[in-house]
């Protein structure tokens, strides 16, 4: 049971990191155009940088 001392914080940290990443993605507008993004990977010309 001593393992829990490490495992619980570790799982919380990883989940929290995922949550923080999701927040960042949401704020930077990466969910604004799901259809467009799905199609953009199929084109031949390369996006140099994401939408600002």
């Amino acid at each position: 049971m001593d393992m829990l001392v490490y495992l619980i914080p570790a799982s919380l940290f990883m989940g929290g990191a995922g949550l923080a990443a999701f927040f960042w993605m949401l704020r930077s507008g990466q969910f604004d155009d799901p259809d467009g993004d799905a199609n953009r990977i199929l084109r031949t010309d390369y996006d140099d940088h994401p939408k600002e």
Partner: protein
Amino acid sequence: MSPRALPRPAVCPACTIPAPEIRPAEAVAPGNIVLSLPTIHCAGCISTVERGLNAVEGVRSARVNLSLKRVAIEAAPDITAQQLVKVVEGLGYEAHELDAALLSESRGDRIGRNLLMRLAVAGFAVMNVMLFSVAVWAGAEGSTRDLMHWFSALIALPAIAFAAQPFFANAWSALRARRLNMDVPISLAILLAAGMSLYETTQSGENAYFDAALSLTFFLLAGRYLDYRTRASARSAAQELAALEVNRAPRLIDGNEVITPVADLQVGDIVVVRPGSRVPVDGRVLTGESEIDRAFLTGESLPAYVGPDAELRAGEINLTGPLTMRVTARAQESTLQKVANLVALAESARNRYTSLADRAAAIYAPGVHLLALVAFVAWFAISGDLRLSINIAISVLIITCPCALGLAVPAATTAASGRLYRHGVLLKSGTALERLAEADTAVFDKTGTLTLGQPRLREGGGFSDDDLRLAAALAAHSTHPLAQALVQAAEARGIANDLPAVENASEHPGHGISAWLEGREIRLGRAAWLGLPPTETTATCLDRGDGRKVVFTFDDALRPGARELIDALRGLGLDIHMITGDTPAAARRVADALGIDKVTAGALPEDKVALLDNLSERGRKVLMVGDGLNDTAALARAHVSVSPASALDIARVASDIVVTGHDLSPVAEALRTARATRRRIKENFALAAAYNAVAIPLAVLGHATPLLAALAMSASSITVTLNSWRLR
């Protein structure tokens, strides 16, 4: 973020009807241009459009949004939208300018993002707490169980405080208005579950319901987000329709035309109204003669002649000659705005509608709270154990599944509006479907609704092919709708290719066209201009120059699907009325063609409202379908209202449902779907009640456990969602 800016819940959607208003032009950075691209659909389209636009000198960036079918362009201030529309059309795609200020994308996105963020927090928390709960269910004892409960509390309490805010805010505002909505029992269940679990944790108790409180929050937020998404897509489509009418007018300053936002026009300004464009504000003609189409305002299908000093009202369409006018009222004080005020008044009456969800909440909430109270009192009387009695009362509240009840309405309306969206029907109000399902009478406007508002030459009117050929030769020189109809009629008869070659054709605005053929002057135009008696119906006359005069009469073409719609509605048991501002003769022709026997002609806007009031006093639930300014008050007054996409902006604002496309027949489909939706919602309530019938006795007898609560909640939510999905 203030609670006011939170998304409105599905259970009180009537509040989301926007107040009609003429928006002041918002400050948009010059050079920010948004174009609507209705035909783009693939990766190739994105590349073509973006590459084409980026190649234009002065365009800094162009980004296509395929989900919204739009392109946002940043360009130098001297680049106009018209130039870019031409570029895109040159690439082979349809493009329309959108009013960037009107779209106000950022606001809508913020609400959606906010909900999504809360959903993510609730999802993260519920998964982690579930892990700890599984350990407890698996048989963790003593200090290990306490540790698990403390960790659960550590995650659950802040997560609930953040994620469940929309429910708390709505419940609070309902309570302040002394009403009960679905959010009241939901908030109470979440808060009590969290509070009781925290207390149990401090007392090393056996049962903690953190996972139940969180999964309740998560499921309900998911329902609410779905609901928001469907409504947002309908709203952005409706917004796009409004934004297509870019509100600017050419204003004359020292003889130069300056494009000015309509909201900035002042009394006394001089404005140019070109043929084919709409009169921007109320005013008086200074120079020029023309004919104007007042159908939107009055429902008359006959164009009216105007000359200097004639009154013009906002929304009328100039047909033949260019006019200059002096503004007599600012946009905010124009006739249009007066109608808008009337609409606001009528709408406040409709907002009193109680949705099915609110009615269910009004039965459910007191029932459940009473049951919990009874359980508490009974257990306390029997056992005398306060803590046990409170625990049992709270587990009754948690286990009665407000989850399924909260999902019952949004899940069904989301599935239904998705289905209608694909049929080209946009729902603007959340209760629109419920109200549509109740409709038992349909009232139609004629001009522009049952008909297209475009004239069509009536056959067999005593004219020969030769007459038509000559008339079409003249008409080809004009954009007047009657002239266009003559050309179309000639094309339909296959005689448009060998038109006589007329010379020196000139248009006399407000009167007609004259030209020369073989040394004779021939004229096509109004009866009075040719010295003929005035005609009763829409007509234009031809003077052949050889002494013979021919009258061409027109009627209004029926809208495609009008016949099918009327038949379908009658089949669904609706009583059909038609009311129009047009003449009795014109009204009768359309009514006969469609088989409508209850007809009112020559009606003023007030008469339309009076008819609706009269019907509703007799207990009828009226579905109003109309498109014009003269219908707007009636649209707002009706139990539920529909307008076609071609309707005036303000009519669309006043109606609950907008049908995109020319065809009206999807309205019947909407009615069928609405009735199916109401059935599903009732089934959903029945399903939720069935779960409760099993769960409540267990909870009241004190056998409820967190595991049972989790199972009941998930199972009932999933059944309700699946049942709703059958609507798609």
